[in-house]
């Protein structure tokens, strides 16, 4: 193992600890020896819950995030109770208040913030410490001292009517004190609330016994040795025995003073959370200023810590922080508050939707721009907060009926089921699109199912919800649905139906995808149409097709199936699901040699090697010495089989050798969608042949039933019997005719189950079995020609088809060639 880098974290609060947790979760312990230095003498705790400690609803030990053992368990050196005074960037070490030094390779500054204390005469004693009875509210120690001092006192004042100030006031109330909140602004919590909401909150607070003083600027603390009261700029006074100052926060940046790092309101960072001046110094949390913003809430901090960790560990060097949209849900002294974005309209066209019922303490206000939520306040009743916060966060279009945004109103009853579904019902389970989102999309102007699917992404996963999406769109359009003409095209980018397109391709002798765009689409390339055209051209021209590799989906460029992390899955051919010792040994060797993370049996009775790097694909294929199983392509995939007659005591037909013949016949056949086949040696159907694109089931009497159009994936459909035949050869013949008919007539990405339903089994049977159109012989010839054109794509291991075909990353041309 290479030597670990030294990572020093200044600050042991929530930001520093979270950053370290994120780094550890990315395997950072192997890369870094981590030292954390914190001023507080404890492990880190959830500062947000301090008010619970003060008001007694949580014990001290309940708010710790990481106890001392956590540091030891993860090999982190914690130097608690130390303050870092200087960063020596040239020497790459830091200096502590006791003059100890610590060297670093990478440094994280997570010093957070401290309470801002406004200039008030008499607040400090001559030695610079607070007058006894004056407190800030930031640390566990502050909490303890406040609690100790409050015993036996009767009157307290809190300076600051923000969230923390109100929480502190609540805590003091619980100790039996009469509490006054002194606030400089015209209403409470002006960061999160507007004037009317602030007024309602004030009323609720007063009902709970708090005195709220607004527009009061505190100028003097009264009393010589003990606190006696406050005097304000208007000359009035307030008697009290203790004061908590909670007037906002100030980022702790002193540690970086003199180090040359740019400090404005806080330490200025780039999108990777690095100081703009030093690539080895990261800053996270309340002491960081990103794109002019300093965040004092916890959720941005989580976002920042993730980006920092992705970047510092090189898990994702492209990770970037783009700022956070601030939405908070909180309880102020038992009153529910949700607030997001701006609190007042900013542009003349901003739309405001508002409801106020002061008597019950309820207030709702939304600010909408371009049909999307840019700000909102909910007070008292926050039932709609989850939806609104999501709409705000994701910037999704809002329903036209604004009333729905503020209240759950009953929808009129109707007989159709999807009409009754609640707006929150998830319609597309692949992409998580709700009925509400579909309706909103229609209301925003999309008037066809295709347009809505493309805008919302509903139906773009497995596709099984497409019909339901189309119904909802029609319903939401109220009959004004527009038909998208591209619905009848083979691919959206070429305005021709499949028969028209085939005819044009043949007549004009178009052999490449770019030629089709040039002659049939006005020279306009359409990315999404390319794979469909490539598939069709290959089917029509076979080995005389001008194979432009960019027209293929990545899987077909590198003959493997792309995975979520950009690696690939490799499945070698295994006809009939039969393997042998030599193959298994080679597969095992490959799995070991290339450190394959997952070896898994597939549903198609093959062995899948997952997590292969693109660069390793050619070598993996070479070492496997097995042909491609095509488990990545819109093509014939595989034919699974049961044990058949050799061993099974029920077997009626030899399903294994039939599966092997099928594999040999159809391997590599491009098709509108994937084709999965199966053979079963008896009607027990152990290989599930009745729910395959094509299946053959042996029945008594030496005969085979051929099923077509079965499915058992996102859709489940039992196949229709195409015909019953009495030999393997006839299975191949009729299956071949059907497959070729499907290849020529199905829309791109139309599975056989949809194709068979669209044409009807009667029509298909009449063409494929009874040869009603006189094309059976031609279909068979096409099958033979496609079969002859088969070439194992994994042979490209030896002769790549394009430049850098398997390269994940290219080196830059050498510096010597520069300029």
């Amino acid at each position, binding site marked *: 193992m290479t030597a670990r880098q030294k990572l020093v974290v200044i600050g042991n609060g929530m930001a520093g600890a979270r950053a370290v947790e994120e780094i550890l979760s990315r395997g950072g312990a192997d890369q870094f020896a981590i030292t954390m230095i914190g001023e507080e003498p404890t492990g880190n705790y959830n500062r947000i819950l301090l008010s619970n400690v003060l008001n007694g609803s949580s014990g001290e030990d309940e708010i710790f995030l990481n106890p001392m053992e956590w540091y030891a368990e993860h090999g982190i050196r914690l130097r608690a109770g130390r303050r870092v005074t200087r960063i020596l960037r040239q020497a790459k070490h830091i200096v502590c208040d006791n003059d100890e030094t610590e060297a670093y390779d990478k440094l994280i500054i997570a010093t957070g913030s401290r309470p801002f204390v406004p200039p008030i005469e008499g607040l400090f004693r001559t030695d610079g410490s607070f007058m006894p009875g004056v407190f800030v509210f930031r640390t566990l120690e502050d909490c303890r001292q406040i609690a100790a001092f409050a015993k036996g006192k009767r009157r307290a004042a809190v300076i600051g009517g923000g969230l923390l100030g109100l929480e502190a006031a609540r805590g003091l109330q619980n100790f039996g004190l009469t509490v006054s909140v002194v606030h400089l602004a015209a209403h409470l919590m002006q960061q999160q609330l507007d004037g009317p909401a602030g007024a309602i909150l004030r009323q609720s607070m007063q009902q709970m016994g708090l005195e709220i003083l607004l527009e009061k600027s505190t100028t003097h603390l009264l009393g010589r040795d003990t606190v006696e009261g406050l005097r304000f700029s208007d000359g009035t006074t307030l008697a009290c025995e203790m004061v908590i100052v909670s007037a906002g926060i100030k980022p702790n940046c002193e540690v970086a003073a003199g180090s040359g790092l740019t400090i404005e309101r806080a330490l200025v960072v780039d999108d*990777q959370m690095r100081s*703009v*001046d030093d*690539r080895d110094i990261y800053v996270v949390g309340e002491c960081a200023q990103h794109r002019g913003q300093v965040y004092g809430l916890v959720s941005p901090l989580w976002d920042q810590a993730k980006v920092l960790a992705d970047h510092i560990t090189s898990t*994702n*060097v*492209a990770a*970037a922080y*783009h700022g956070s949209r601030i939405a908070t849900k909180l309880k102020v002294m038992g009153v529910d508050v949700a607030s997001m974005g701006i609190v007042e309209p900013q542009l003349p066209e901003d739309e405001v939707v508002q409801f106020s019922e002061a008597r019950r303490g309820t207030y709702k206000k939304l600010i909408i721009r371009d049909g999307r939520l840019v700000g909102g306040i909910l007070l008292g009743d926050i039932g709609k907060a989850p939806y609104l916060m999501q709409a705000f966060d994701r*910037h999704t279009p809002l329903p036209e009926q604004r009333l729905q945004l503020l209240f759950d109103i009953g929808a009129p009853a109707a007989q159709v089921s999807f009409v009754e579904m609640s707006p929150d019902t998830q319609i597309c389970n692949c992409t998580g699109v709700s009925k509400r989102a579909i309706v909103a999309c229609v209301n925003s102007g999309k008037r066809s199912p295709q347009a809505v699917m493309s805008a919302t*992404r509903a139906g*773009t996963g497995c596709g099984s919800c497409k019909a339901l999406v189309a119904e909802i769109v029609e319903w939401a359009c109220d009959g004004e649905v527009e038909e998208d003409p591209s619905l009848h095209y083979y691919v959206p*980018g070429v305005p021709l139906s499949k028969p028209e397109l085939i005819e044009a391709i043949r007549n004009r002798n178009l052999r490449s995808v*770019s030629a089709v765009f040039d002659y049939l689409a006005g020279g*306009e*390339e*359409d*990315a*999404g*149409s*390319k*794979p469909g055209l490539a598939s069709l051209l290959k089917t029509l021209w076979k080995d005389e097709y001008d194979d*432009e*590799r*960019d*027209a293929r*989906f*990545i899987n077909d*460029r590198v003959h493997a199936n*792309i995975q*979520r*992390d*950009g690696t690939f899955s490799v499945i070698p051919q295994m006809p009939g699901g039969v393997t042998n010792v030599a193959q298994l040994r080679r597969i095992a060797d490959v799995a070991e040699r290339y450190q394959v993370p997952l070896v898994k049996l597939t549903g198609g009775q093959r062995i899948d090697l997952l997590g292969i790097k693109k660069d390793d694909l050619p070598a993996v294929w070479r070492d496997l010495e097995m042909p491609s199983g095509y488990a990545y392509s819109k093509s014939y995939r595989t034919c699974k089989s049961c044990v058949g007659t050799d061993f099974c005591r029920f077997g009626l037909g030899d399903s294994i050798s039939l599966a092997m013949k099928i594999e040999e016949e159809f391997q590599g056949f491009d098709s509108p969608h994937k084709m999965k086949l199966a053979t079963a040696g008896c009607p027990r159907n152990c290989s599930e042949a009745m729910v395959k694109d094509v299946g053959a089931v042996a029945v008594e009497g030496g005969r085979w039933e051929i099923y077509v159009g079965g499915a058992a994936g996102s859709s489940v459909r039992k196949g229709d019997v195409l015909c019953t035949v009495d030999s393997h050869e006839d299975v191949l013949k009729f299956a071949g005719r059907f497959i070729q008919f499907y290849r020529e007539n199905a829309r791109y990405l139309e599975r056989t189950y949809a194709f068979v339903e669209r044409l009807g089994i009667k029509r298909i049977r009449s063409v494929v079995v009874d040869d009603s159109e006189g094309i059976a012989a031609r279909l068979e010839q096409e099958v033979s020609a496609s079969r002859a054109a088969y070439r194992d794509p994994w042979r490209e291991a030896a002769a790549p088809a*394009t*430049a*850098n*075909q398997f*390269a*994940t*990353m*290219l*080196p*830059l*041309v050498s510096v010597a*060639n*520069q*300029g």
Partner: protein
Amino acid sequence: MEVTIAPLSAIPEGEGRNFVVGSDRVAVFRTRTGEVFAVQAQCPHRGGPLADGLTGGSTLICPLHGWKFDLATGAGPDPECALRTFAARVDERGRIVLSVPPTGYSL
């Protein structure tokens, strides 16, 4: 600052390839119309490898979940989700040259 990254022939027509330029991973595309474009290497949605995507004109489709982007402007499915772009050109010797913002760090 301009960096010469590779001969045009390193990238097949209509496809993309990845390069590391400074601290950035960049996906560089060569379109069938002879233009070159460069954008961040990973899809902002789920980190998909954009260089493996399909192109058509200046449209790019991510291979993982089909998100579409404009290679020229970086514009994505919604304004919040755009790609970082880098200016790219082909020089007189047929090599791809990228403009990368000065980072203050040496490459």
